[in-house]
């Protein structure tokens, strides 16, 4: 995953988390706000109902008191106070009086509790209301809830009692209004709210006893458990139900117990508040939040993409610059500007590459000078040896000519012989340098490395056990199934031969020469080890530098040629050495060399320095070619 992708995903996740947290927070806060608003609304409605309830109660009290104060009622009381009063005369009075005073329930009751006239149950005359005869200050009681028996069954009434006393006899006037759908209809409720009334008139929950302003509530069984809870523990409570799986059908309820004079539960008022608008509003807010989130994400992603691209572009340029540097283009520059850290980094990078280029040029120049000096020293050294005999021979000829003319011919013959011999040496020296300069391009063909190794060992068999020098024991560890590679057999033979010669030179006291072949990933590996005196780390560093040698008569071209051959085959060469233990050369050759021109390891006329070696040179091993 690229740095840009990582940065993009970091931005995206951060954006998602931020937007999600904000959206969740907004939703929760909105929900709480709606809940608070709804609760306040319901509480206000409950308070309104309680106020309305009290007002209705006072109204009922006034109406009943109005009946008690009416002249007809007083006359009735006076009449009934007489001995053997005929109560049957008044049996139908309650109906008319209740209609004129707009009361649903009205009973005229004698002092013994016997009903004289009843509006809600006219046929019940003569029966007694015993609860009326119990001591009670009815005038201070005000209104109260009561279960009223009617000919249609029990009903819930908001009642009041008033009395007219004549002598020692009371006439009770019991009046009230029915609490039912008409009562609920008279309540002014805001849109989306409704009032339900459960009349607790039966021992068990009766669905038909739950009414709203239009009559029995549909699906009232859903409220049975809440009403049962209210019946067990009469108190204000709130709950919410969903009539259907659709959240829009949810409705919040506030339950208000309706209790009678003795705190007995007579009914439950349920103030229902439809959550439809709230849910719709929540859905709108949620949709809006989702829309904002989506838009935010969209634009956030775009901005993230643009931002990451903008942020990573200089980094990418830096990476490309670094890659160019790694590929050898030390003059690579990064086109990044700005005062930020990346800009500073780019400036530093450019300064670094500039310095690297300058230092490399200086180094190359220095190496070139050093190489020329080494070459000059080597040439001087190589040429000095033949030149001195030449000079001596020519001086002998001059001296023989002047001092011993008679021996001049003899001297001349010997001297010309020496001159020719030394000139031949000079030609050989020049030839070796010429050969190194003219290293041929490899001509590839199938090569079995094992065969090459075996051929070389066989070539040097006589020298391993030559008389007059300590024996060298060759050990071959050749892998049987070594793959055939594409290589130039002659050049490969020459390179291995040089390494074997170096190893033999490194073991003047004899030792073991080990040659091992293996293969890995299609490449062939060759290890050539000796048990010589080994090399120092400094020697290893300069081992493959041309014309570098630690031998008295080496040209310093042997390992340079080996490295050139290996490099021309696309391989690698490295050296491991430990002083007093020995040295091992590791060559890795690919099955097929890459199709590219061989790097210019061959020193040209102006630059005697080869490319940087891949491993340390072996100063003791340069004698192979130059020996």
């Amino acid at each position, binding site marked *: 995953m690229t740095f840009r992708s990582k940065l993009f995903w970091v931005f995206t996740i951060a954006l998602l988390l931020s937007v999600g947290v904000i959206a969740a927070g907004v939703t929760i806060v909105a929900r709480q706000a709606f809940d608070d608003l709804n609760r306040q609304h319901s509480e206000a409605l409950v308070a309104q109902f309680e106020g309305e309830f009290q007002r209705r109660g006072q109204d009922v009290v006034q109406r009943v008191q109005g009946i008690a104060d009416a002249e007809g009622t007083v006359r009735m009381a006076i009449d009934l106070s007489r001995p053997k009063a005929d*109560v*049957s*005369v008044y049996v139908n009075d309650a109906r008319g009086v209740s209609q004129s005073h707009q009361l649903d329930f009205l009973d005229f009751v004698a002092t013994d509790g016997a009903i004289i006239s009843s509006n809600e149950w006219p*046929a*019940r005359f003569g*029966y007694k209301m015993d609860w009326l005869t119990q001591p009670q200050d009815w005038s201070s009681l005000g209104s109260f809830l009561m279960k009223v028996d009617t*000919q249609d069954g029990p009903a819930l009434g908001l009642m009041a009692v008033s009395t007219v006393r004549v002598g020692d006899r009371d006439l009770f006037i019991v009046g009230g209004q029915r609490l039912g759908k008409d009562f609920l209809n008279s309540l002014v409720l805001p849109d989306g709210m409704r009032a339900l009334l459960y009349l607790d008139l039966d021992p068990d929950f009766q669905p038909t006893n739950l009414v709203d302003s239009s009559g029995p509530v549909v699906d009232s069984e859903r409220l049975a458990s809440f009403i049962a809870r209210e019946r067990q523990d009469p108190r204000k409570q709130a709950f919410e139900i969903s009539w259907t799986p659709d959240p829009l059908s949810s409705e919040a309820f506030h339950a208000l117990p309706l209790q009678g004079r003795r705190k007995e539960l007579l009914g439950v008022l349920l103030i229902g508040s439809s959550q439809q608008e709230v849910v719709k509003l929540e859905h709108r807010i949620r949709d809006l939040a989702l829309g904002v989130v989506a838009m935010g994400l969209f634009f956030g992603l775009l901005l993230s993409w643009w931002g990451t691209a903008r942020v990573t572009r200089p980094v990418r340029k830096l990476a490309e610059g670094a890659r160019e540097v790694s590929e050898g283009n030390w003059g690579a520059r990064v086109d990044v500007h700005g005062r930020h850290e990346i800009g500073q980094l780019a400036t530093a990078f450019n300064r670094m590459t500039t310095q690297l280029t300058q230092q490399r040029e200086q180094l190359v120049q220095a190496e070139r000078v050093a190489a020329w000096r080494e070459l000059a020293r080597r040439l001087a050294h190589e040429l000095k040896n033949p030149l001195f005999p030449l000079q001596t021979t020519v001086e002998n000829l001059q001296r023989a000519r002047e001092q011993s003319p008679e021996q001049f011919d003899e001297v001349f013959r010997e001297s010309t012989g020496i001159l020719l011999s030394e000139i031949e040496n000079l030609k050989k020296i020049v030839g070796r340098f010429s050969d190194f300069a003219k290293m041929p391009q490899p001509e590839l063909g199938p090569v079995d490395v094992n065969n090459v190794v075996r051929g070389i060992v066989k070539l040097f068999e006589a020298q391993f056990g030559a008389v007059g020098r300590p024996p060298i024991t060759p050990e071959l560890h050749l892998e049987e199934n070594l793959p055939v590679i594409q290589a130039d057999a002659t050049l490969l033979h020459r390179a291995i031969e040089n390494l074997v010669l170096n190893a033999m030179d490194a073991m003047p006291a004899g030792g073991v020469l080990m040659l091992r072949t293996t293969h890995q990933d299609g490449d062939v590996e060759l290890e050539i080890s000796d048990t010589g005196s080994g090399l120092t780390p400094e020697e290893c560093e300069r081992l493959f530098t041309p014309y570098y040698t630690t031998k008295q008569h080496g040209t310093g071209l042997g390992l340079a040629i080996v490295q050139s051959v290996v490099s021309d085959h696309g391989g690698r060469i490295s050296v491991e050495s430990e002083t007093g233990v020995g040295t091992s050369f590791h060559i890795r050759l690919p099955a097929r060399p890459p199709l590219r021109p061989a790097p210019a390891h061959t020193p040209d006329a102006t630059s005697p320095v080869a490319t940087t070696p891949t491993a340390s040179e072996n100063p003791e091993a340069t004698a192979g070619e130059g020996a």
Partner: protein
Amino acid sequence: MKLRSCLFLAVISIALLDAGRVETSRRPRYGGTLRVEIGAVLHSLDPAGAPADPDEAAAKNEIDSLLYDQRNPDGTFAGVAGSGAFHIAEWESGKHVTLAANENIRGGRPFVDSIDIQMGRPAKDRLLDLEGGKADFAEIPPEEARRAAERGVRVSTSQPEDLVAIVFAAGHAIAEDAHAREALARSIERAAIVNFILQKEGEPAGGLLPQWSNGTAFLFSTAADAAGAKELWSQIGGSPKIVLGYDSGDLLGQTIAERIAVNARDAGIGLTAETIASAAPSPANVDARLVYLRMTSSHPRDALAGFQAVLAPMAGLDPSPLPAAAASEQIYERERAIVSSYRVVPLVWLPRLYGLGPRVRDWKVPAAGEGWPFADVWLEQESQ
């Protein structure tokens, strides 16, 4: 002395003149139209036409008694319509009928020239018209009699001759349970019905015939026995319920049925009162029905026979008629047998009450089975 004699003569003359005017006002007068209002609605006076309900039948019977001068042995009228004291002068179906006096009727021409009968007038309107002088004659419900009298209406009351009773429908499970029938019969406070609902116009009925008819009514108990009723009802297994039907539009019947429901509830009896169509057979769900039985004769044997004829098919009673010369004991035994079965539960006897306008004179309450004696009624001329 002379002055005193003159004053005396003057006082005597004035007294005689006043006495003569009073005598003149009590003398029957021919002429005038008797304005009658009835609650029933008649759509036909055709003898072959069957009345829609008992009220229509009763009203038609009253009008026929004015139009015909003869009756068959079974009580139906004989002869030609108009052969009686009056003939039909004007007929508007369902609204009113005008009867004109027959001049050559045997026994003498009626005093009034005509009778205008307005049909379909509610009881409240009839009373208002009586009070306002817009009607001369109207039947008034018993429960309204006292209030009408208090308002100054002349009220004429007959002997109790209409029986209100509960008749259990034969074949219904609960109706076939003697305990259930007796429990209901014993739970009813008949006195309360008479005193409160009927405003003391009527008598509690324990038997089928009123006391004035056979003289044996006192032998039947009318007292309520809620405890006994409760005990009887508790002997019935399950949780039965009696459906008591009453005719739609019958406000008195409704009130009585509701009171019976209260009494039954007090005795633990499950009973509901339901309205049913008048004159229609009782619906299948109705176990008992509130009925009005009108005495067709003053004679106890005939009256009981009339009751029996109506009740037998309804309650599954023995339809066999009493002997023509049945003695009082036999009539009582038959009456006792019917009442003891509790298939018929007598409740109250109702009198027939008539409201009379101030100018109606010589009105006599008709005996049971007789029609309105309008031929003998005359109208006092209203003072100018």
